[in-house]
């Protein structure tokens, strides 16, 4: 099982492959499309990530010492972004998620590329995942 660091490195290399932002977005969208949907009954307001322009539902559960995330979003780009985060964070020890430094968002340039409101939404997703991780590692 790859570590959080290794997962990030894989993403960075994947994105380095594309020169054009439209192609990078296309990749994000494909990741969004391949993320399994949450069942409708799980998409309740308690799971909504605050501060996102579109609706993003984030669910976390603990499996032994690992934290398992699942998520959905009503907009596909938001879903693609949360899919990347899940790729990096899910199925990792909760303590490591809580302590992890996320460098891939900056390395692939996504954080700078998003408008400020969307970048805030992205940071809210990260924050929410870390909250869950903290709660589970306590």
């Amino acid at each position, binding site marked *: 099982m790859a570590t959080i660091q290794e997962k990030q490195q894989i993403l960075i290399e994947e994105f380095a492959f594309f020169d054009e932002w*439209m192609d990078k977005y296309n990749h994000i969208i494909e990741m969004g499309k391949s993320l399994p949907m949450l069942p409708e009954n799980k998409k309740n307001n308690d799971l909504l990530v605050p501060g996102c322009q579109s609706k993003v539902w984030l669910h976390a559960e603990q499996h032994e010492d690992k934290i398992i995330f699942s998520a959905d979003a009503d907009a596909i780009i*938001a879903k693609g972004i949360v899919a990347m985060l899940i790729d990096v964070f899910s199925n990792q020890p909760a303590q490591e998620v809580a302590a992890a430094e996320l460098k891939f968002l900056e390395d692939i340039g996504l954080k700078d590329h998003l408008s400020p409101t969307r970048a805030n939404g992205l940071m809210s997703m990260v924050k929410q995942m870390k909250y869950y991780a903290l709660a589970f590692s306590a």
Partner: protein
Amino acid sequence: MAFDVHDIREQFPILNQKVHGKPLVYFDNAATAQKPIAVIKAISDYYLNYNANVHRGVHTLSQRATDAMESVREQVRAHLNAAEAAEIIFTRGITDSINAIAYGLSNTVQKGQNVVITAMEHHSNIVPWQMLCERTGAELRHLPMDEHGELILDRLEVVIDQNTAIVAFNHISNTLGTINPVQKIISQAKKVGAWTLVDGAQSGPHTVVDVQSWDVDFFTLSSHKMYGPTGLGILYGKRERLEAIAPYQGGGEMISTVTLEKSTYAGLPHKFEAGTPHVEGIIGFGAALKFINEIGIESISAHEQSLLEYATKECSGIKGFRVIGNSKNKASVLSFVIDGVHPYDLGVLLDQQGIAVRTGQHCTQPIMDAFCIEGTVRASFAMYNTFEEIDSFISGLKKAVSMLL
């Protein structure tokens, strides 16, 4: 003067730039319009040559600034065909204008009366009236609309009744583009003795308005949607109405005498203009009005209308495309959804291709609820937009949809 969109574009240097490596296509005009050189020059000329506070000094610069500001008041009067310049109030914007009236009516509107708006108002023509109703105990009603985004006029006589204090509605919907039948609504209000306020946020840049022939009590405009500076609104009010209501802000400029115990208010228009006004904005707006009128609002509107028709026709070929708001009488706003695609995603991918549109609820959450949608993509056109830009928009849209679906 013949309408030449390429000559017009030269007056808007901001349009000549690339966004994400693609030529900018600016279709967010219903949010704010770009400013022509004449407006930018008028503002810098003010700061370079005659910046001073108005109405106070006897010195020359103050006199020049005051004259410039007052001549814009006269220009606005002529533009709206108001009876006198004192009926033209400079405010901070449409929101400020509507709040001034809604607050001013706090002592006159009573429990048992009602305030009427429509189902297609933006939040700034909803919330101030909700607040007025909370303060006074009056009832807030609305005139409903149908699935095309047209007001249901058969309901006029039911909704507006003997107890209606004021009817406040937009001339043109920012979300749907619907042009509302102003005179019909005003005449029903008059029949029962209700006051009227028309929100001209979207009509200012597109249509000729004659407040006297409408016989409207209050009318409000936004400078920045009319190619003028931000932070400035116009509030027209009939003299007798403005005299009857209380000012909502106290301060300098709006008083005639002040003692520590009591002040008396100045006459119109100053009673509603507390504090130092937005002088540069007013002067810039004067230049914007002159610019619009030299081109001619009818020519502008005809150009925008053909853009709207072209865009609507071209878009309708896109699978799952649905116009939100297909009133027979429509201004240059194309609001739409595409089945299975979120408006935000379209907004992001259009932006990547240099195309600026608005996505979301457009400050009209009740309209979104009425159509059971999360939001729309809105392309809105102005005098400087071209058919070629619509072609870029259509191909950008198709590309985005093919990526998203």
